[in-house]
């Protein structure tokens, strides 16, 4: 069996990160966590994950900015990004698309939905 795929979860809500991490690890993925935008960005560049789950509203650097910074860098532009947010306004989705976000999921989400999306990107 090949090495486990790496997933980076960036969210300032520790509880959300915990539950996501638990479910994804149960699915056999290796999970890394960051609790603010700055750390998330550093970690992303360090470990180059196979996929990122990103919250929008975070201290220091918000999710859109991280997404933009990564997507305009050839080294990281291929990392799929799933954006998670409590906001559901249409314009937020538009910003998400402009900054290169691959998927957009609104809170409260079904864990099953996220796992389904993750599998779509990592096991095709």
């Amino acid at each position, binding site marked *: 069996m090949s090495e486990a795929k790496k997933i980076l979860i960036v969210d300032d*809500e520790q*509880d*959300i990160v915990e*539950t*996501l991490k*638990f*479910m994804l690890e*149960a699915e056999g993925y290796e999970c890394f966590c960051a609790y603010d935008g700055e750390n998330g960005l550093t970690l992303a560049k360090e470990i180059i994950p196979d996929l990122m789950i990103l919250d929008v*509203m975070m201290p220091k650097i918000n999710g859109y900015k991280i997404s933009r910074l990564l997507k305009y860098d050839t080294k990281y532009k291929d990392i799929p990004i799933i954006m998670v947010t*409590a*906001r*559901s306004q*249409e314009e937020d989705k538009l910003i998400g698309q402009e900054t290169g976000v691959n998927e957009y999921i*609104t*809170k*409260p*989400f*079904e*864990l*099953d939905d996220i796992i389904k999306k993750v599998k779509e990107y990592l096991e095709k």
Partner: protein
Amino acid sequence: MSKVLIVGDDEKVNKIIETTLTNSAIETLSLSDEDDVLKSIENNHISLIIADAGAKNIDTSILCRKLKSYTHLENILVLALISPDRDNLDILKTTNAYIQKPVNEKILMATVNSCLKMKKSLDILSQNNSELAKSLYQLDVLYNTSAQFAGSLDKQKLINFLIDGLDKSLSFSLSYTLVFNSEDKIDLIINSLNGISQRLEHSLKMRAILSYKALFDKKEIPYQIDVDDINVIKNIKHPLEEYDLNILKFDNLFAPIKVGEKFFGLIEVFRDTEFTQEDTTCFQTLARQVSLPLENAALYEEIKNTNTKLEKLERLKSEFTSIVSHELRTPLTAIKNSLDIMLSGKTGEVTPAMNKFLDMAKRNVTRLSGIINDLLDLTKVEAGKMDFRFEKGSINSPVVFVKNTFENLAKEKNITLLTKIDQSLPETYIDTQRLEQVITNLVSNAVKFTNENGKILITTETIPAFAIEKEKLFDVENPVFYDTYVKVSVKDSGIGIAQEDIPKVFDKFQQIENSLSRKNGGTGLGLPIAKQLIEAHHGYIWVESEINCGTTFSFIIPVLNEKEKFELDLSEAIQKSKNSNILLLKIKENTTAYPSVSRALKENKISIIRKTTNTKEVFYEENNENCIMAFIPEADKFAQNFIEKKIESFTTGAETGSEKYDILYSTVLFPDDGNNAQDLLKKADELLKRGQNE
């Protein structure tokens, strides 16, 4: 006393005239040299000149012409003495009267007398004229200043217009205006021809305060005032020269300035010449006239402040909702995720009892997030912030979609769910997703409140406006109706709603007190949301019900054609626009000149607008006329110019390379060109027609 100048070289004739006139107590003066004539006329207040046309060294007609060329001499009359044997027509053109030589004393006296009478009338006339001209000028200033007053809602500007108007009509030397903008902001505006000395400035301050206090006599003054509080604004025309205290000895006029009935300030003007009665009237009129516009300005300011406050409140409200929703959703997600993990069995075995309660927790979390979503929806649609995607379509498709979703649930409860669909239903403008939301809500209510073996029927049909039972539409002020509607009804055989509860059905958080409804849960927001969504479609929703027999919810949506929909959208945008302008464009392909240009051009016309603006636009094509109408919310004069230039460059071929198109267009701006959709459209049409005729 009249004075007559006699001009001629015949001493004898002069003598006769002199004697005759002197006998009648008329002063005379005789001259025989042309050079002396004009000078002596100016110095001696001459009323009449008797000129001998036969004089050798004086040309009478040249003298007359010279006289006419001076405005202050043009009223002097000329009586010509002519010989019957000579051709004198030329002289008669320029003189006022003539007598023939030899001079007959009686005729001379009669003519001179009538000339002098005429001169007297002329003088009175011209004096009246010049007074009239002055009055006219003052009236003109009054009129212009009033017009300026009417055009402004800015207090500062109004006061400036007043001072400016007074300056023009009175040509004052100095004016000061004391203005109470607020308790702590008191301005003294000094407008002066010359500069003012230090001590004059101080005296003016003191004088202003004294005048202010004098206005109220012994009554209580509205504002307390101190010399140091006064902020002096000086406008000096010629700073090199300086006025000193002596200006206070000049003639002066004084008036209070009121805002409506309330005191606002006062104005005093000084002039080195005396003010006439007309000047005083003009001064008082202007000072009085500024009162009403000042009051309007004050009201406007108040309204603006209230509006700003309201807007702030509105913003706070929507921020609040957004924050609340964010803050609520995040913990909800954590709870839900935790429950999901436990329920999945990955944290260890779940006993049936554990499963039951975990499931209960999860069900309630789901319900809570439903409430949050409903709340958000309602706030959004109420604030007009919900984005609708209206497209032409049949209302049958959301109905069929909802029926399919509920089929299983109905079967479980053993309820018959039927539809009666009118396949020939006309298409209209609908947001399919939002209507699905409405119909889902209605059907889900029907399922909830219908017992086993009950029946639910969903019907769609076309209905003309006159067939609508308007008394059933409650809570609608001044309903407007279109010709045709599509109607959807959801009829159930459920528990029904009591008559007294029917008016409350669409109120927020209004769940009718009923054990069954409590048991059935729900947020109490579904129907108010449905009502708002239907109203956004320009439709109406209502309910009919009878206890224990069943309930029927019905809604209607107007069948609109493209034009009606466009006009509705435009009116709505106008209603919503607070600070921004709306630009309306009408572009017409001039088919008589270029019959072959068709589809490509249409696409280009749209792209002209799309490329030039990044705001949302709404389009409407009048196919039979090859017209495209569009409006752009949040436009401005700059956008208007930009689009016009773009169209021009396109029509001249600069944009498209070699091709040239013959396009007519008109642009109108709200609110500059009209206050409502009808006026704007009419104006756009007018401008387009004018362009066509040119």
